[in-house]
């Protein structure tokens, strides 16, 4: 893990050995936990788009919510701009909250249907005193312009808008406070591809213009190929592999990554050739309450060995910057 810390001078977010457990009752006196995030180390450098990919139940959203302070970590630390923020949201300073924003997956439930767009966008402006009271309307219009919506949208209710437009409002709300770091939690997975393309393009434009850092959570590897600078794969609360995008897609190392890549339905022959051959997806994701011993992927792994059933593998740097947590490489 040393080379991760070596890049610390430009690191904006560092998550160390983060664990988020949820109690789910007891079995024979011993408390049971869902280990949603189980010992995650992750660094995000300033100005990059870190793609965090995993299937449902992998803990990617829990990780994001823990960073945001929606859940308190069970163990480990979250360091944002050199400041330890592994405390509940109520004890975080206003400036941290201003710099750290999130866009949720479903704009239908993250925007209040009883408020107008204007009310939705005003709140962060007031709380963080971004502009004077008399300039608020002007700023709301500016935010709408930023996401390419006409000014009269401020009188609309989110209910009367399409899914794509609603997500634009969510993005405008997140960027209202001029944050430095934005977590995007599957912002386009509820939308059609033609709308997704528009939103992604806008997010990329904004990232460049405002020098933002994104932690982009998704289950779509093809999307990550096009926008991320680095990709991290999560499986059952742990990180399996992380590498710069080019390297990641050129030589995926972890058997789970290869299984994921080979499962993606693609639309051209060139893409078909990129998919790892002869990896057939088998088995299902085990319940996070009952994680198998050893490597949590061993039940589905085509390259399973004896050691995988007993010993949990550790992260190794297989290539410079390319980390993988698998016994095949340690």
């Amino acid at each position, binding site marked *: 893990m040393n080379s991760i810390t070596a890049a610390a001078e430009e690191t904006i977010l560092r998550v160390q050995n983060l664990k988020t457990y949820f109690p789910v009752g007891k079995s024979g006196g011993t408390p049971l936990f869902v280990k949603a995030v189980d010992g995650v180390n992750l660094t995000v450098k300033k100005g990059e788009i870190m793609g965090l990919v995993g299937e449902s139940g992998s803990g990617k959203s829990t990780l994001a919510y823990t960073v945001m302070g929606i859940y308190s970590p069970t163990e480990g630390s979250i360091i944002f701009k050199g400041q330890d923020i592994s405390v509940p949201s109520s004890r975080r300073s206003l400036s941290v909250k201003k710099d750290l924003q999130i866009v949720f997956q479903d704009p239908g439930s993250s925007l209040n249907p009883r408020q107008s767009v204007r009310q939705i966008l005003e709140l962060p402006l007031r709380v963080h005193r971004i502009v004077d009271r008399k300039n608020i309307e002007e700023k709301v219009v500016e935010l709408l312009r930023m996401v390419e919506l006409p000014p009269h949208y401020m009188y609309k209710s989110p209910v009367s808008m399409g899914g*794509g437009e609603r997500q634009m409002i969510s993005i405008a709300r997140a960027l209202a406070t001029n944050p430095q770091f934005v977590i995007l939690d599957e912002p386009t997975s509820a939308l059609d*591809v033609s709308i*997704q*393309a528009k939103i992604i393009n806008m997010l990329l434009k904004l990232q460049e213009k405002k020098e933002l850092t994104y932690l982009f959570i998704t289950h779509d590897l093809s999307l990550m190929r096009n926008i991320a600078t680095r990709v991290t794969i999560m499986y059952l609360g742990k990180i399996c592999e992380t590498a710069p995008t080019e390297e990641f897609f050129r030589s995926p190392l972890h058997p789970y990554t290869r299984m994921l890549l080979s*499962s993606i*339905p693609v639309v051209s022959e060139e893409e078909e050739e990129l998919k790892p051959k002869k990896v057939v*997806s088998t088995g299902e*994701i085990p319940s996070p309450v009952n994680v198998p011993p050893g490597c949590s992927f061993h039940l589905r792994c085509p390259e399973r060995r004896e050691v995988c059933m007993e010993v949990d593998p550790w992260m190794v740097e297989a290539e410079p910057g390319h980390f993988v947590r698998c016994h095949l490489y340690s």
Partner: protein
Amino acid sequence: MIVNNEKDCILDIRNLHVWYRTYGGFAEVLDGVNLMVKKGEKVGLVGEAGCGKTTTMRSVLRILPENAVVPKGEILFHGQDILKMKSQEINKVRTQGISMIFQEPSAALNPVFTIGTQMFDVIRYSGSGKAKSKDEIKELAVKAIREVYIPDPERILKSYPGQLSGGMKQRVCIAMAIVTDRELLIADEPGTSLDVTIQDQVHRLLRGLVEKKGMSLIMITHSLGVAREMTDRIYVMYAGSIVETAETKVLFKDPMHPYTLGLLESVPRLTGGGMAEGIYGRIPNYLSPPQGCRFHPRCRLAAERCFEEKPPLMDVGEGHYVACFWVQGVI
């Protein structure tokens, strides 16, 4: 208009219109759908949310909501119009001819009955109507569950849907759809609610079974990638009508309709190369849909004729049909 002179055609949907009665008036959702399925053919129906894919397929089984009306069109199943059938006849189609797999397996299965109970019912009421003994029914159920690669069928039959994972439930739904012989299987986004590795398994399973049993398949999906892997022929749907259809290989080699092109461009590629612009605007309001070609407000190539007249689906060669004046060269 697709000319049907094929003898082995199972399902032929002709100029189907479906409207929904709402407080704001009639929502004119389907605006002349033409679709044909041949014996043993795997057909993909591709389009974005709200384009009428599911409405089309629901009208085939006559399971539309009560506020739906069908002002025009025919759905011929072996030459007989499903829309004009008496309830006894349509039930025969549902129990012997066509079966359907729904998008959300947890909504398709009743949570308060065991898989066994639900499956036995399907077997009891489907097929030729011959009375079957309890043992025969169970044997068929166990065989079907084995066919979808679920180990330990006896245990599954005793479980409730809530005790199974999403992928498992979808396999059970597939088992129910194929447990008695059907000619046509309609799969409405069977993998959409599942994770990508599980989706891949379910799709492979479905394709294998359909091929093994010689059934025809209509695969409804919003993903061109899924359609490419699963089907022989693709129908691209936009705002209630088919805008383009061709054999899958031909469609991906030579897409023609501006909507198909925009859709294909919008798909992020595994090869990289950045993101396309997407398609301007959004799907129309069906209460007052645009005149002429319904795609014209979003089309880069729209000319005057497109505003006034709806382009027909015309053959451009190799069984490739496109509904666009621009492609037909008559603008």
